[in-house]
C-alpha cells in the first residue's frame, strides 16, 4: 500500500519527447487512470513507474522511497498486468501464479497456500492444471491478475488489460476489476485509450497528450470542467461541439463548447432556463436505438447559406425519449442551456471562465 | 564488471571460431623458412611474421597447380546446378504452397525429408548409376547428382518463403482478368524474387562445399572441383605444400563467408520454418 510521487519526469528517445515533464501525485489506495491516444506517453510513464524504462530526468517515489535510479522492478513492490497478459506458455496456471513467489524464494508450502488463496479470489481454482493456450481471453486475464496479486504488491500497474477482450466481455470485466480493487485497496495505475473505460474505472483520470499532462481530475471534473479543447473533445462520445461565434458580448476568437446531449430542439429544452439558440441545418439523422444522432451545421443569421465546411459539423444527441421529428435537409431551431455552455480561446484552446 | 566478462567471452568465442582462419592467412604468406620450424621450438613464435611475408605460395598455387582449373570446373558445375535447381525447385515450391492445398504441406515435408538422406548412403547406388551412364570421372556426374541435394531443400525454402507472401495479390490479379497461368508467368515471379535469390545462394554454397560426391566420382586431377582438389591433390609426392594449400583454402573461404554473412537470416528462416511458428 503506497502512494506514488512523480516530479518533472521526462523520457526522451533521441529527439522524441515521449514523456515531457510530468508531475503527478497518486494517493495511496487510489485507482488512477492514464488516458490518452497512442503516442501520448501514457504507456512510457507506466513503464517508468514499473522500472522497465529508465527516466531521462525527474523523480519517482513509491511509498516515499526513490526508485528512478537503478532500482529494479522486483525491488519496487509493484506488480504489472500486460496487454497481452504475458502468461508463460510452457507453465500451467498454477506454475504461472507461483512463479513470482519462487523468484522471491518463498518456501514451497507457503507458495501452495498463497496460490490457492489467490486463485479462489478470482474463481480460477479449477483451471490450475491447464495451460494458457487452453484458456479463453477472460480466463487468461484473471490468471494474469492473480499472478500480479499473489505477491501482495504495493502498487498495481495495468497496461490496457481489457483491450484484447471482446466488446461484450469488457463491461463485466470492468465491473469485476473495479470491485476487486475496491476490496484490496491497492494503489492502481491503469493505462487506456478508451475513455469509456477511463470514466468507468478511475477515481481520477490523467488526460495525456504528446508526453504532457493536460488535466487531472475525477471523471466528473474532466467531463464537465475540461481545461482545454483537447480534453473537451477527447472525453465524451460523441465529442463536445466546438463553434466559433461572432458575438459582440464575448471576447474575440472565442469558441463555444457544448456537449451533444445538451444540444436539443428548442421546444424540448426546459422552459425557464436561460438558453442560447441556434439555427441548425440538419444534414443527416442516425437512428441508434437508444439515441438519435443529428448531424448538421449552424447557420449564422444574416450570412448567406454556404456549403458547410467539414469540420463545422455539429452533432446533437437526442435520447429516445425525445420523439420530436427531425427531417433531414431542413433547418430547425436548436438551443443549449446557458449553464451547459463552455468557452474556449480559439487560438490556445484554453478554457475561459466567463 | 559484467561488461568485462562479456567482452572476454566475446573475444573467446571469436578467437575460437576464427583462429584457424588467421592461421590460414599467416601460413599462406609465410616463407617456408619461417613456416617449417618445429613447434617444440618455443623461441620461435609461429603466430606472427618473423620474416617478411612472401607471395611465393600464391604464385605457386595460381601458376603451377591445377587450382585455376578447379575454380573453372567448380564455376561450371555451379552455374549448371543453379539453373537446374531454380528451374525445378521454384515451380515445385510454388505449386506446393499455392496450388496443392492441404496435402501440399505433407508432400512438401516429405520432399524436405529426402534432404536428410545422406550422401554417404546414396553414393553407393550412385556409383553404379554413374558407371551405367558412363559419367564416371566427369563433371556431368556432379551436375546430375548435386540437384538431388539442392532440390529438396530449395523446394522447402520456396514453400516457406511463399507462406510469407500474401496470396491476395495473386487473387487480385485473377479477379482483374489473368488466368492462373498468367498469374504464374507474369505476376508471381516479381513476388518470389527474394526467394529465388535465396535458392541461388544456397545452391551456390552447397556446390562449393560439397566433398563426398566429388570424391566418389572424380578421379583425374584436371576434372576436380576446388573443394576436392585442394585437400586431395595439392600434394607433390608425399609432401603437403601447406603454404599453397592454405592460400587456396583462404581464397575459397572468403567469398563464401561474405555471401553467408549476407544471407544468414534467410537460411535460418528456412531451417526453422517447420519447427517454430511465426
Amino acid at each position, binding site marked *: 500500500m503506497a502512494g506514488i510521487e512523480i516530479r518533472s519526469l521526462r523520457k526522451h528517445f533521441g529527439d522524441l519527447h515521449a514523456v515531457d515533464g510530468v508531475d503527478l501525485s497518486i494517493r495511496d489506495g487510489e485507482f488512477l487512470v492514464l488516458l490518452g491516444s497512442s503516442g501520448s506517453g501514457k504507456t512510457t510513464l507506466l513503464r517508468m513507474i514499473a522500472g522497465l524504462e529508465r527516466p531521462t530526468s525527474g523523480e519517482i517515489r513509491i511509498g516515499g522511497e526513490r526508485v528512478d535510479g537503478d532500482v529494479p522492478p522486483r525491488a519496487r513492490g509493484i506488480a504489472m498486468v500486460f496487454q497481452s497478459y504475458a502468461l*508463460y506458455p510452457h507453465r500451467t496456471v498454477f506454475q504461472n501464479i507461483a512463479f513470482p513467489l519462487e523468484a522471491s524464494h518463498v518456501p514451497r508450502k507457503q507458495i501452495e497456500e498463497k496460490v490457492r488463496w489467490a486463485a479462489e479470489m478470482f474463481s480460477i481454482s479449477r483451471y490450475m492444471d491447464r495451460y494458457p493456450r487452453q484458456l479463453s481471453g477472460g480466463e487468461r486475464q484473471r490468471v494474469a491478475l492473480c499472478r500480479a496479486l499473489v505477491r501482495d504488491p504495493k502498487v498495481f500497474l495495468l497496461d490496457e488489460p481489457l483491450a484484447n477482450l471482446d466488446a461484450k466481455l469488457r463491461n463485466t470485466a470492468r465491473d469485476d476489476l473495479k470491485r476487486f480493487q475496491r476490496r484490496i485497496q491497492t494503489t492502481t495505475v491503469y493505462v487506456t485509450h478508451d475513455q469509456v473505460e477511463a470514466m468507468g474505472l478511475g477515481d481520477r483520470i490523467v488526460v495525456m497528450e504528446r508526453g504532457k499532462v493536460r488535466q487531472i481530475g475525477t471523471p466528473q471534473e474532466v467531463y464537465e470542467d475540461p481545461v482545454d479543447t483537447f480534453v473537451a473533445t477527447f472525453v465524451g462520445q460523441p465529442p463536445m461541439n466546438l463553434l466559433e461565434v461572432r458575438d459582440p458580448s464575448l471576447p474575440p476568437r472565442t469558441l463555444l463548447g457544448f456537449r451533444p446531449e445538451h444540444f436539443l430542439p428548442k421546444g424540448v429544452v426546459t422552459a425557464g432556463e436561460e438558453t442560447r439558440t441556434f439555427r441548425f441545418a440538419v444534414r443527416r439523422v442516425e437512428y441508434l436505438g437508444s439515441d438519435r444522432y443529428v448531424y448538421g451545421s449552424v447557420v449564422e443569421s444574416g450570412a448567406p447559406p454556404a456549403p458547410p465546411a467539414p469540420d463545422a459539423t455539429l452533432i446533437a444527441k437526442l435520447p429516445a425519449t425525445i420523439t420530436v421529428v427531425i427531417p433531414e435537409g431542413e433547418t430547425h431551431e436548436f438551443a443549449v442551456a446557458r449553464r451547459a455552455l463552455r468557452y474556449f480561446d480559439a487560438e490556445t484552446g484554453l478554457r475561459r471562465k466567463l | 564488471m559484467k561488461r568485462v566478462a562479456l567482452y572476454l567471452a566475446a573475444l573467446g568465442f571469436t578467437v*575460437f571460431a576464427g583462429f584457424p582462419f588467421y592461421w590460414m592467412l599467416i601460413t599462406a604468406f609465410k616463407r617456408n623458412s619461417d613456416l617449417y620450424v618445429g613447434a617444440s621450438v618455443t623461441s620461435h613464435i609461429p603466430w606472427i611474421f618473423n620474416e617478411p611475408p612472401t607471395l611465393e605460395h600464391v604464385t605457386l598455387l595460381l601458376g603451377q597447380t591445377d587450382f585455376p582449373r578447379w575454380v573453372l570446373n567448380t564455376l561450371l558445375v555451379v552455374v549448371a546446378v543453379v539453373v537446374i535447381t531454380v528451374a525445378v525447385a521454384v515451380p515445385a515450391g510454388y505449386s506446393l504452397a499455392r496450388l496443392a492445398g492441404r496435402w501440399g504441406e505433407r508432400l512438401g515435408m516429405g520432399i524436405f525429408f529426402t534432404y536428410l538422406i545422406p550422401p554417404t*548412403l546414396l553414393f553407393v547406388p550412385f556409383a553404379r548409376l554413374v558407371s551405367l551412364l558412363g559419367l564416371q570421372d566427369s563433371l556431368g556426374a556432379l551436375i546430375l547428382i548435386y540437384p538431388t541435394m539442392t532440390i529438396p531443400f530449395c523446394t522447402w525454402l520456396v514453400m516457406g518463403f511463399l507462406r510469407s507472401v500474401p496470396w491476395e495479390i495473386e487473387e487480385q490479379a485473377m479477379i482483374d482478368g489473368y488466368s492462373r497461368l498468367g498469374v504464374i508467368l507474369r505476376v508471381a515471379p516479381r513476388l518470389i524474387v527474394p526467394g529465388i535469390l535465396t535458392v541461388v545462394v544456397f545452391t551456390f554454397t552447397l556446390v562449393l562445399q560439397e566433398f563426398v560426391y566429388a570424391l566418389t566420382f572424380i578421379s583425374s586431377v584436371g576434372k576436380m572441383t576446388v573443394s576436392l582438389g585442394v585437400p586431395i591433390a595439392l600434394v607433390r609426392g608425399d609432401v603437403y605444400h601447406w603454404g599453397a*594449400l592454405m592460400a587456396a583454402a583462404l581464397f575459397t573461404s572468403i567469398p563464401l563467408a561474405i555471401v553467408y554473412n549476407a544471407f544468414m537470416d534467410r537460411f535460418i528462416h528456412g531451417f526453422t520454418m517447420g519447427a517454430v511458428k511465426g
Partner: protein
Amino acid sequence: MTGRRTLADREDVLGAAMLAPALAYVTLLVGVPFVFAIVLSFSDATAGSLHFGWAGLRNYAAILGDPIFLRALRNSAVVTVGSQVLVVVLATAAAQVFRATFRGKRFARFVLLLPWAVPVSLAAIAWTWIFDSTFSVINWTLKAAGLLHGWLYWLGDPALALFAIIIVQAWRIFPFATVIVLAGLASIPQEIVEAAIVDGAGFWRRLFRIELPLLLPIFAVAVLFGVVYTATDLGVVYILTGGGPANTTHVLPTLAFQRGILGADLGQGAAIAVFLLPFLLVVAVAMLRLARRAEVGAR
C-alpha cells in the same frame, strides 16, 4: 475476357505440371537409389562390373563380426553425441554473448560464422595442418604457456585423434546452432520476458526457467540438424585421419567409402551405410513430432 475455364485456369493441372520435375527428380534420383542402397546391402555387387547377385545377410554378418566396423559404429556415436553436447553448451553461451550489444559486434559475428561458411574439406585440411605432429600450432601455444610438458600426437594417437575430430565437428557446427538459438531468443515475445522481470526473476532464473524452456523446439531443430551433419559427415574424418591410425578412427561414412568405393565392394559399403539409418530415423521422427506440436499451438 473469356468466360470459359481454359487449361490455363486448371489449377490441378498446373500444379501437377509444376511439381512433376521435382517429384520425378526426387523419386528417381533419391527415392530409387535409397531403396537400391538397401537392396545392394543384400547383394554381392562390386563396382567393377555390372554383376548383381544375392548374398542374403552375408554382408551384415561379415561387418557385425568385424571389429573395425564395430569400432566405427562406436566412433560414430561418440563423435556425434560428444560434438553435439559441446555444440549445445557453446551455442547457448555464445547466444547470450551475441544478444548483447558491444563494440565490434558485427565483425565478431562475421568471424563467428566463418567455420560454418567454409567448405568442410578446406576446414578439415586447415585443421590437419593445425594438428600436425611436428608443426602443430596448438602444441606450440600450450608449450609456450607452460601447459604442455610431453607432446601431443594429435592425429597419430587413436584417442587424441577422436577428440580432435569431435573438436573440429563442434567448431564447425556451433556457429549455425548459435544463430538458430539467437533467432529463437528474438522470437520470444518481449512482454513475457518483461513479465518475468517484474515478477522478480533475475538473469539466471529468467534464462533457465523461462527463456530456455520456451526455446526447446528451436534447440531441437539445431541439435537435429547438427546430428545429421555430424553423423553423416565424411570429409572431416577422411581428411584429418583417413580413418587411421590403423582404422581406429573410422566412422560409418568413411568405412562405407573405404569398403564400398575404394574397395569396390558395393554390397558391404551399402550395408555399413545402412547403419546410419537409425540415426536419421530418430531425427526424422523427432522433427515430425516437433512440427505437429508447433501446429497444435504450443503458445
